[in-house]
């Protein structure tokens, strides 16, 4: 079937543009997202340097939370997912569930087993 993206006519670029981006993310939005990413990178580094040892759990939460937030920003804006999500979520959501599940499933064997004592 003819895929508008691959037509070689002069309106090829326009067809690309119109076909999958009725909306389109402006350069200004990208710049703002970049600014956010830089700020949060600095915040992560600062949280690591300046939080005392006692609050290590808080540093863990802050740093982990910021990492997830930064990754979300990159995926949603830089990867245009804000426009394409409805078309792609069937790929992404199961993997996002499966990925932590793999770690959780192995937790009793690798992490908790140490507590049982020395190996035979």
């Amino acid at each position: 079937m003819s895929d508008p993206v691959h037509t070689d006519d002069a309106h090829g670029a326009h067809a690309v543009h119109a076909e999958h981006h009725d909306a389109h993310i402006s350069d200004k939005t990208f710049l703002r997202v970049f600014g956010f990413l830089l700020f949060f990178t600095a915040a992560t580094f600062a949280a690591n340097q300046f939080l005392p040892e006692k609050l290590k759990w808080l540093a863990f939460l802050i740093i982990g939370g910021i990492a997830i937030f930064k990754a979300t920003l990159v995926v949603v804006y830089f990867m245009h997912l804000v426009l394409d999500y409805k078309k792609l979520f069937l790929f992404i959501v199961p993997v996002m569930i499966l990925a932590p599940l793999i770690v959780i499933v192995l937790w009793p064997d690798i992490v908790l087993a140490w507590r049982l004592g020395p190996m035979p």
Partner: protein
Amino acid sequence: MLMAAGVHFEQKYLQRGALVPTAKLAMWLFMVTEIMFFTGLIGTHTLLRMGTPAGDWPKPHQVHLKEWMGAVNTFVLIASSFTIVLAHSAIARGDTKRCLLLVGITLFGGVLFLGIKAVEYTAKFQHHIMPGRIGDNLDPRDGRAPYDPNYALAYRDEVQHQLEDIVKNPAKHGISEGSEDFKTAQSFLDDIKGTADKPPISPLEVGLRLHPAEDEKKFEEYEKKYGNLHLTPYIPYGNLWASTYFTMTGFHAAHVIGGLVLFVIILLKGARGNLLPRHAMMLELTGLYWHFVDVVWIFLFPILYLI
């Protein structure tokens, strides 16, 4: 709409297949498999780390990890993600020249990232921090892992050989004959070989002297005393740390190199004048891949350097 005389389908009302262009679908499918790949690696690291007793996992300064280098790398990758998305935006508007310039800047960012990684890896190699080469498991009273006395003795022998080489050719190691470092090496060697009235020290004792302390101040003393000798350190769980570190950052660096290949292809196409606005999809997909590489690093950086 169905017409009376025959069947006339209006194509745009009949959607078969995916709603995104095939190429984009394929790229997302590939990225999803790569997410699973990196989840396997990062998940393994997480499990192994959570499995070590509390407080025993090596701290960053013990394994010569500099957080600021990781932070600079993060900044470089995020900036290059920004430039590649601007490049796609430019070519979608028809501005090929600007697109090529931005792709060139992105390529530079990628190369800079690899350069900083190379500096970090070199520092690790110089301090013998490589999987399987770190002194480990030297304490016979530690019941958590099976203690192998031959393994511990092999560590002591390795340190002894290194010290003998330093004492024989100090110049090769950048140490001058009468200096403090030379005297330290000499006395250490005597302790290991043992004298008439003193038995040779145990492997654990050797390890404890060469153990980079968790405490920052004691670590500085250790660095001052043994830093220039570059002997194999004793870092509990250090080999596990090195294995996971080099696996994760190594595979990530391989993915970065793949991205650089894509940029070179685009730049070559542009140099021959073959890059046209209709190639916007190529830029978008390259950008998607590069953003994925960036997202992986966004997770790797806190996991390896910070937490």
